[in-house]
């Protein structure tokens, strides 16, 4: 287990380092120059030269890269070019908002999926399955930005019961009940497709489990079907669902860009969009690297949770 973990960590690290070089080079290849963005159209050449020197963009590529790595190691990311403020705190603030939103959506989606799919399997009724399947397909088929806008129009503008956007004025932790209301609409818009996808997967996984011989064994022992679903099939379906959950987490982070745009949610999605558009190298390269790291960590965490949930892997180290 430990050996396996080390092996995975090593390859994750390699991917991250390669990605950092790739990202660093890539962002500098993008047409458009941060200096002109910063200086504006009316600046004099002297101004532009001063800015270039100030940003260190007059140094050679590898020197810039080494500098950046040094900054990363010291966790001092320096100031952003365009967005204002220290990159570290910009990202920290944005990340808090995005993570809270994404986790909220993730919890909403996974708890929702757990409830709907077990309901569908336990009360195996034709009408219920058709209804859930239809809702499911609809949730996947309507684009996220459309759902988000409809939610704003209905619940914030037409019937103003929930905030139209923005983050709770007092932060997430001072008034959790207020924060919850701010999170509800964007969280729901973000969670719906993931909810549907997870429900579909989990329902199928549960159905597959119910066809396994151990379920027949349990039924032959007189254990009620509902109890078998809840205590046995679900427990067996979870490891594979965790992997899907990991993938969904990535999808949610991607979808957050759209939802953040609609709900004026100051998160990472907005940051990266603005960062790229302003050619704000320090912001963009850290965010892109972060997205690689998150992806790698999610995969790793998925593997670990999978291993932990499955005693065959947990106790023996091999599948």
């Amino acid at each position, binding site marked *: 287990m430990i*050996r*396996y973990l080390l*092996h995975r960590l090593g390859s994750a690290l390699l991917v991250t380092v390669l990605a950092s070089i790739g990202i660093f080079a890539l962002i500098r290849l993008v047409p458009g120059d941060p200096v002109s963005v910063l200086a504006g159209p009316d600046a004099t050449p002297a101004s532009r030269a001063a800015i270039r020197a100030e940003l260190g963009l007059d140094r050679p590529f590898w020197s810039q890269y080494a500098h950046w790595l040094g900054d990363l190691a010291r966790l001092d990311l320096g100031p952003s070019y365009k967005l204002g403020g220290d990159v570290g705190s910009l990202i920290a603030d944005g990340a808090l908002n995005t993570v809270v939103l994404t986790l909220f959506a993730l919890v909403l989606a996974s708890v929702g999926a757990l409830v709907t799919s077990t309901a569908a399997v336990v009360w195996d009724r034709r009408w219920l399955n058709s209804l859930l399947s239809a809702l499911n397909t609809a949730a996947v088929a309507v684009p996220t930005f459309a759902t988000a806008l409809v939610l704003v129009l209905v619940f914030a503008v037409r019937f103003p019961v929930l905030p139209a956007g923005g983050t709770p004025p007092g932060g997430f932790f001072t008034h959790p009940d207020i924060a919850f209301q701010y999170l509800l609409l964007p969280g729901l818009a973000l969670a719906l497709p993931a909810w549907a996808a997870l429900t579909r997967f989990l329902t199928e996984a549960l159905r597959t489990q119910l066809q*396994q*011989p*151990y379920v*027949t*064994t*349990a*039924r*032959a*022992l*007189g*254990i*009620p*079907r509902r*109890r078998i679903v809840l*205590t*046995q099939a679900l*427990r*067996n379906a979870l*490891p594979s669902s965790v992997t899907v959950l990991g993938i969904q987490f990535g999808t949610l982070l991607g979808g957050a860009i759209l939802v953040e745009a609609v709900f004026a949610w100051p998160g990472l999605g907005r940051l990266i969009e603005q960062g790229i558009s302003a050619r704000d190298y320090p912001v963009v390269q850290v965010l892109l690297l972060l997205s690689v790291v998150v992806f790698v960590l999610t995969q790793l965490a998925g593997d670990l949770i999978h291993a932990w*949930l*499955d*005693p*065959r892997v947990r*106790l*023996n*180290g*091999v599948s």
Partner: protein
Amino acid sequence: MLDLHPTETVLAIEHLAISFAQPRPAVEDVSVSLRRGEILALVGESGSGKSMTARAVLGLLPPGARAAGSIRYDGEELLGLPETDLNRIRGRRIAMVFQEPQTALNPVRTIGWQLREALRAHGLKSRRAAAERAVELLRAVEIPEPERRLGSYPHQLSGGQKQRVVLALALANEPEVLLADEPTTALDVTVQAEILRLLDRIRERTGTAIVLITHNMGVVAEIADRVVVLQAGNVVEEGETRTLFANPREPYTKTLLASVLRLPELDSVVEPSALLPSAPASDVPGPDVPGPDVPAPDVPAVEFRGVHVHYGSRRRGRAFPAVTDVSLRVAPGEVVGLVGESGSGKTTLGRLAAGLVPLAEGRVLLQGEDVLAAPRAERRHLRRGLAFVHQDPEASLDPRYAVGASIREPLDIHRVGTPAERDARVAELLDAVQLPASYAARRPRELSGGQRQRIALARALALEPTLLVADEPTSALDVSVQARVLELFRDLQERLGFACLFISHDLAVVHQVADRVAVLRGGELVETGPVGTVFARPEADYTRRLLDAVPVPDPARRGRRVRELAS
């Protein structure tokens, strides 16, 4: 209890019919009655409806199945009972044991949890009482260190132990009837013998009536009081075991019994014919079918010299030996049987000969040449003399191709002849495996298991191999089908003269087809020799134990064997 009502019927199945959407009903008309405390065997080949009958008793038919007739337990009609009422019966009055212990237990729950869950279903809610009862049950099914085993997960147990746990689950609520669906089929013979004895003892101790569903006549002869023979959803014949084996009335029963392969009695006189099938050295391929590369008569078709095989990556430190220091020669035209229990390395050795697993140490010589040391082109040439028949008839043919294309594939790979010639060869090969040439256009799914194995054989023979590796080619087949396929195999082998590594766990099958036999255990070679000699007078203790454990399809010898086993 055993003697109070010896003839009282506990379970009566009358005119049971089960049908699916398919045209032919799974069960057409089955009537069986089970008496208290007896062991009743339901015997039949696949598709006879024996499993469906048992499942119908507990209302565990697959979705879409419709059952008619009557199943009465203690006078109560079970057919059509709602789920909640069935749950009252299930496990408490009638319990069931399934064929595959590997999957019959929940892999992510401990043994103790599963036992407690079974007890809880019938009212034992107290955790402590349940734990105590669980230990008691594990002890009853003769699992060592029961307290410790409660915390184990299924994958930490051996196959035999798992089946004991499944039995413990079934016995948890002291049912009066136990339905055992092929409870020993997936187990090694030695384990099978132990489980059968355990069943017998449970019956004696608790008076539970047992319905034993099996295709193995040896098992029936070993343990059953009465036998019901099923064929295609109908009862063919019914009777006391001894009587039925001695005087089968129906032709189907007769064929069934005749198909059963028998081993010679241990320590009997070796028949000369079995000793010397034909002198291996003189066995040159027939002149009409020249092999791709005629080897010198004394060069073995394959030779293992001190081979070792490891599984798992050595770099990651997870390697474990599958085969350790095995040396073995297969002479041209000779059939060598590889026998052993699971984990003995017999399959690995076969795959090594076929070049499907990497060699860790030692040398493998094909027709005297080291395959791995040979240059690329030469290796390809040597490969032409090789063929492989797989155990699983389901997966051994590509489902996307007509079987003719599958047979042709080796010819296509080596670009033998013109396309027309290849098609002609396919027809020839189909003829050789006794299938009509029109079958070439069929898809694998349109064939039965036996037919598919014939096709696999035809494909293996397409390039006229000098060595055929056959990995359990008949173990998934019914006895009557198996007998015919083996007959065909033997016939083809004699005609074409290829050498063969014949891998099987079934000693009787090996006895039937092999010239020589090699007994493997834990990756090591235990004993080799002419098949007659080894099976009649084994030198190694292990071989003897293996032979001892094989159930003999003769109830007349039961008493003797029980005595032997007890000693």
